[in-house]
């Protein structure tokens, strides 16, 4: 056979250079700017110092207090909800557990932005639906007001706390039922088993989830933006956003706050990882057990009620409120006064900027997902299969954007591309680049799950049979990866359509996307039009989600 040109090192090197450029460069710019104490718009900075960091503690101390206060409240609520639901759905015989488990994922896909809009409709002062009903029944004043510390935390817990449920139920599922059974065999009662075996084994999982959720809540943006700014409650993320809006924009201050947030979150997540990899707490043996559900007798219906209540608060009520609002001229829950109309949808689809934003988001979703999966599939292969030196470092590099709050990454990209002499700031290209970068961890993790399931000898066998690298990739690796690639494509597409944190900084008048447009519409136009826009976005995501579920079910069938 004639020796072909060896493409592997060339392709690998090119991919690594591109990723390093995308991931590290913006952060370098951000660090530089945070130390800029001269003219904050000057690049490179003329004077360096730590004044930006000091100012953060001097002038914005109430912002830091708000941030911690809201994050603590949200974390406590999220963990309580997550633990209760995880326990009910993994350890008891409540009917319809699989369906309910799917339901638990929905709030996450609805996004905190849509959740915050919905809850402002449900529980806003005066015109909120709950208060409307209260007034109609003769009540005075408002009985609920979501525009407060608790309201922000409540929305964050409902729509971003889902991860707590996922993590805690994973640690409950991975516990070998024999551990509990042996306690029972030794003569321990149900209660004693629960206290002496189950709880101690699950506790590390719960603590881990607490740490993780708290870190996430510190960097949470959407609820604080939609609810917090009208209520004049600023947290660190909205303060960063705010200081880029002032004139002249204070990028130095914003960078210092962004980097501090990044460092705190990074530290907590690293501590979390270190704890779970330490292994002494490992109830997770890699093997999934089917835990024997406990028979709860008559309590079953109460527990089912708890699950349904959550479903009502996090899915049904928000969606219903948004749908009602979007179909009326003036949002009201008193049906006799309602004026039904589809004008809001028509406006959303016809009004120039909004239509353009929807089109752009879909286009970016398609483009980024399509280019992304190819790049990510290559990356996964390089990291886990190529055995080139430093593949561990590449993995770290690729996963890095996950540790950086979206918002901070958006800020970093903004500052970097304002100063890089390639004129893509304010265009869709920069958004595409940003999406591609922040989606790297998501795509690579999804694809890696599939790659690692593929026995390495399937590829080696192709080589021994005489196939070169390109031929092997084309005939063996990529076809085997196809289901994973499709799943990753849909996940990235969804994530692009709902992207907010990075988009707010990078959107320009000629490059609008949907999520920031919803925020803008909420601030300037009526709730009714905003609700219609939010539902269009949610509908798109749900459609992609349905396809994904169909697909993955088919795939798992095929694979087993």
């Amino acid at each position, binding site marked *: 056979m004639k020796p072909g040109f060896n493409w592997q090192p060339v392709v690998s090197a090119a991919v690594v250079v591109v990723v390093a450029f995308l991931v590290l460069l913006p952060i370098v710019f951000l660090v530089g700017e945070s130390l800029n104490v001269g003219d904050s718009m000057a690049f490179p900075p003329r004077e360096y110092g730590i004044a930006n960091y000091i100012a953060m503690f001097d002038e914005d101390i109430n912002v830091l207090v708000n941030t911690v206060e809201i994050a603590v409240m949200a974390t406590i609520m999220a963990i309580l909800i997550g633990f209760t639901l995880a326990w009910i759905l993994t350890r008891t015989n409540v009917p319809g557990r699989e369906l309910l488990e799917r339901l638990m994922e929905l709030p996450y896909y609805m996004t905190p932005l849509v959740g915050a809009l919905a809850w402002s409709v449900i529980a806003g002062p005066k015109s909120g639906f709950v208060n409307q009903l209260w007034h109609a029944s003769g009540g005075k004043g408002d009985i609920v007001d979501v525009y407060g510390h608790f309201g922000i935390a409540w929305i964050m817990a409902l729509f971003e706390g889902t991860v707590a449920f996922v993590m805690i139920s994973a640690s409950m599922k991975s516990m070998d039922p024999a551990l509990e059974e042996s306690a029972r065999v030794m003569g321990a009662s149900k209660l004693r088993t629960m206290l002496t075996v189950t709880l101690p084994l699950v506790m590390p999982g719960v603590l881990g989830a607490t740490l993780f959720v708290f870190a996430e809540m510190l960097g949470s943006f959407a609820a604080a933006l939609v609810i917090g700014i009208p209520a004049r409650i600023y947290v660190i993320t909205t303060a960063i956003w705010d200081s880029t809006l002032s004139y002249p924009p204070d990028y130095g201050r914003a960078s210092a706050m962004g980097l501090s947030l990044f460092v705190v979150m990074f530290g907590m997540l690293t501590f979390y990882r270190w704890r779970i990899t330490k292994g002494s707490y490992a109830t997770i043996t890699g093997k999934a057990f089917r835990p024997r559900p406990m028979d709860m007798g008559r309590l079953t219906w109460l527990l089912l009620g708890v699950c349904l209540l959550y479903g009502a608060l996090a899915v049904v009520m928000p969606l219903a409120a948004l749908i009602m609002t979007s179909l009326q001229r003036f949002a009201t829950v008193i049906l006799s006064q309602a004026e039904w109309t589809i004008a809001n949808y028509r406006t959303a689809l016809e009004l120039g900027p909004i239509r353009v934003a929807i089109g752009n988001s879909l286009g970016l979703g398609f483009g980024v997902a399509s280019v992304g999966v190819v790049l990510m599939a290559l990356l996964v292969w390089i990291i886990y299969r190529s055995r080139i030196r430093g593949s561990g470092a590449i993995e770290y590099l690729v996963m890095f954007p996950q540790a950086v709050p979206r918002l901070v990454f958006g800020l970093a990209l903004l500052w970097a591309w304002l100063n890089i002499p390639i004129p893509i700031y304010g265009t869709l290209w920069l958004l595409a680049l940003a999406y591609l970068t922040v989606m790297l961890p998501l795509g690579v993790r999804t694809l890696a799950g599939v790659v690692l399931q593929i026995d390495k*000898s399937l590829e080696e*066998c*192709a080589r*021994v*049979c*005489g*196939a070169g690298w390109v031929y092997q990739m084309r*005939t063996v690796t990529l076809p085997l990866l196809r289901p994973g690639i499709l799943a990753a494509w849909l996940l990235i597409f969804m994530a692009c359509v709902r992207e907010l944190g990075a988009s707010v900084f990078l959107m320009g008048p000629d490059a609008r996307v949907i999520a920031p447009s919803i925020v803008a519409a909420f601030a300037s136009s009526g709730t009714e039009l905003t609700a219609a826009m939010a539902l269009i976005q949610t509908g798109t995501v749900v459609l992609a989600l349905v396809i994904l579920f169909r697909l993955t079910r088919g795939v798992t069938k095929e694979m087993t």
Partner: protein
Amino acid sequence: MSPTRIEVTDLVVRYGEQIAVHGVSFTVGRGEHLTLLGPSGCGKTTTLRAIAGLEQPSAGSIRIDGQAMYDASARRNIPAEQRGVSMVFQSYAVWPHMTVYDNVAYGLRVRKQSAADIKTHVERALDLVQMRHLADRAASKLSGGQQQRVALARAIAFSPTVVLFDEPLSNLDAKLRAEMRVELRELQRRLDITSVYVTHDQEEALAISDRVIVMNVGVIEQIGTPEDIYNRPRSRFVADFVGSANLIKGKVTGQGTFEAEGGAILKTVGGTAGSEVAVRTAYIDMVAQPGDNQLAGHVRQRMFHGDFVQYIVECACGRLIVRRPPVNLLEEGAPVTLSFSPEHTVLLQG
């Protein structure tokens, strides 16, 4: 044409700090079936993968038909796809997204053969493993034994001169493994191929090989025919790992004589210096034969295994294990004289 097909010289393979293969040299003749035998982690699979080009060695050389595939001094390392060898993987590595036919045709398609040729060769290969009736079946819908046959057909379909086997039978159940062993031996005879086979199963190694290489911790312990390895183990490791043997401690007292612990004098073959002799459990008779080495003792335990009976006999030199056919059973506690030929009393090195 040279009679040597594969020549491995001073091969060293490292995994980071660890040395997996530590200066291994051997040759494989044309049409020969060589087996690398050893416990897990002995470097046998690494050696095989280095021959295939799937592992990058750090020193030595590998030649196939006189051509350097790897040569540390010449900085030459031919990639796997250009070495023209074939391989059967431990996990079978049957591609689940293809049919049986497509799997087997892969090597031929890579070589851009005509459709007609591909068909002929695939069918011939499938016939050899009796899988032709399943040619259109999706590979993911095959049983373990069937996958194994497909992997075998795929490996021989493009008429390679060298086929490497990496523990191909280890994932099959015991009965199927015994059957496949017979078939594999048959196939080796029928096709003019040279094979290198890796296994940790000593029975399998002895049964299907022309020659066996016993490896341990990255080095070769002994090379020889199966009978050689079994009858004349050179080291304690080989005696212990291949078959079952009694090891008797003592000291050499002269040319071919050995004083066992407890005072008995044994006539030996094998090396000239050492402190242990090996006696296979199957070669010990429980009736005294003239001219044999003899040890007096009594039966401490008897275990009935079906195909054989295992006795543990307490002697002055320690406890010896004896395996006999399940007839003329001795009772536990009975006095007995063990008798074994000097030919089977092998002085071990070192």
